[in-house]
């Protein structure tokens, strides 16, 4: 307490030495108002702008394409034969800084083969009320199952509708794909799948 008081007194002393009227300062030349012609320039800017093409995008009527790598809604991809790429490893959920992803893995059984190998994602949810579209989940995905589309119209009127389930996120079936569950391509291992050796579904896969 006594130390504190001493310090305050020292500061007072140094302050008292300075006369408020003799504080050194530097005068800087003021340019003053610009000439009338200079001031009129601003009016010309606004006037000429009226005749320029305006920048507004008439959004709901006209949808401007996004940048090719725009971070939009996620998508769960498929192998060319229709099996899901997601193996339920939860790395995306762990990578997510906003805790927007919930994954529960499940075992692939002979009657319920959803993805190559042993495991598949049984529950896959992305909460778009939390998602910040940073793309760390996409970087974390070891099988390239999770990527992002360019779709950005995600607004909705119910909170429940903005938690996207696996069905909402899965990529559609393309030409040559079979809807899982179905067995793996005959003679192929999960490694072959990841290496891209499977090009399309085999007729035997359709038989149950």
């Amino acid at each position: 307490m006594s130390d504190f008081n001493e310090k305050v007194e020292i500061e007072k002393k140094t302050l008292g030495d300075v006369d408020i009227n003799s504080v050194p300062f530097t005068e800087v030349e003021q340019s003053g108002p610009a000439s009338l012609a200079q001031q009129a320039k601003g009016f010309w800017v606004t006037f000429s702008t009226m005749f320029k093409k305006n920048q507004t995008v008439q959004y709901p009527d006209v949808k401007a394409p996004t940048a090719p790598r725009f971070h939009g809604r996620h998508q769960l991809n498929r192998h060319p034969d229709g099996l899901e790429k997601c193996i339920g490893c939860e790395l995306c959920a762990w990578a997510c800084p906003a805790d927007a992803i919930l994954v529960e893995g499940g075992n692939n059984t002979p009657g319920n083969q959803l993805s190559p190998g042993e495991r598949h994602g049984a529950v896959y949810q992305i909460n778009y009320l939390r998602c910040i579209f940073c793309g760390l989940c996409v970087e974390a995905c070891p099988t390239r199952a999770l990527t992002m589309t360019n779709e950005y119209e995600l607004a909705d009127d119910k909170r429940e509708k903005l938690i996207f389930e696996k069905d909402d996120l899965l990529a559609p079936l393309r030409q040559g794909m079979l809807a899982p569950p179905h067995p793996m391509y005959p003679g192929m291992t999960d490694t072959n799948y990841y290496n891209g050796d499977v090009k399309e579904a085999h007729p035997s896969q359709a038989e149950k």
Partner: protein
Amino acid sequence: MTTAELLGKDPVWLIVVKCLIVFIICVLATLMAVWTERRVLAKMQLRTGPNRVGPAGLLQSLSDGVKLALKEDIIPAAADKVVFIIAPIIATSMCFMAFAVIPMTGVVNIFGHKTALQLTDLPVGVLYILAVTSIGVYGVVLAGWSSGSTYPLLGGLRSSAQVISYEVAMGLSLVAVFIYAGSMSTSAIVDSQHQHIWNAVVLFPSFVIYVISMVGETNRAPFDLAEAEGELVGGFHTEYSSLKFALFFLAEYVNIIAVSALATTLFLGGYHALPGLGFTEQWLGGWFTLIWFFTKVNFFFFIFMWLRGSLPRLRYDQFMKFGWKVLIPVSLIWILIVASLRVLQQEGAPRSAILAFAAGVVVIVMAMISLIERNKEKVRSTVLPEGEAPNFPVPSLPQVQSINVSGGK
């Protein structure tokens, strides 16, 4: 036959019809003005502006008005209820009343009756407009006071101080017009311009002062200190909602149109056509003059929008300084000059004497300006010591072409 005599023969039903026409014109013009302003300002900012409601967004202000009317009407607990309700009524009705003496057309035919689209023609018409707009200030002051809240009070005080100070400059700029036209009646001023030349040409300084002070008087950018959003929330109408707010909104725009119409009447020849296009005045049975009138009003309205799009808001002290120390002295001197010239002319002084007087005025004004310039204290300048060139890359300053980023040699 003068306009006053022409209007004196109006039957009562025609006066009622004209009242209605003037009222409808004011309201329609406000709706159009809001839309025009939003579109033009948008254009100046590379935007489109409202384009959803109706063709090209024309009905936007109508739908905004309906929305305002349907909103909840709140009267704050601390408000003085009676004054709170009366204030917007005063503000709005006074703006409409200003339109009564504005001549909008020449001689036209309304339902088989030969008359002019002007409600009444007072011998002191312009003074009447000044008086009525001054009463309109009561609406602003009372609104600010009766809200029972700090921001509206400050905003109300600000705008009343502003309107009153700029009304002085406005009134003084009109004096030169009165001297020149020899009348205070709006229609007589229009006639005198039709016979000679537009007042905007002969009384150019008055015209400039009027245009500046009409912006100050209507509380518009760059003089919109009373509604400085960043400082006073909404100014005097912060506590107002629903239809009462709509009334203030309406009053603001009718006021703008009224001062523009007055400027047209006093300085740009009123409803008459541009010089050399006089034959158009007979088109549509004389109603074409109404188009000329509103073309000129829109010219002034465009100036309002242009100012709003280009200039930042003034500081309050600068604004008051400009009004009292620049506009009023300049218009006083100008009135002296105009009055002297007028007297010389009327007393039949020879042309050489008038010219000599004008030359003398020019010499005196120039001498005064140079004296003021010379007496201005030269600002001492000390060059700041140059620091060492920075050793890291820095963005180039606007006035510097390039900067040494290597540091040293």
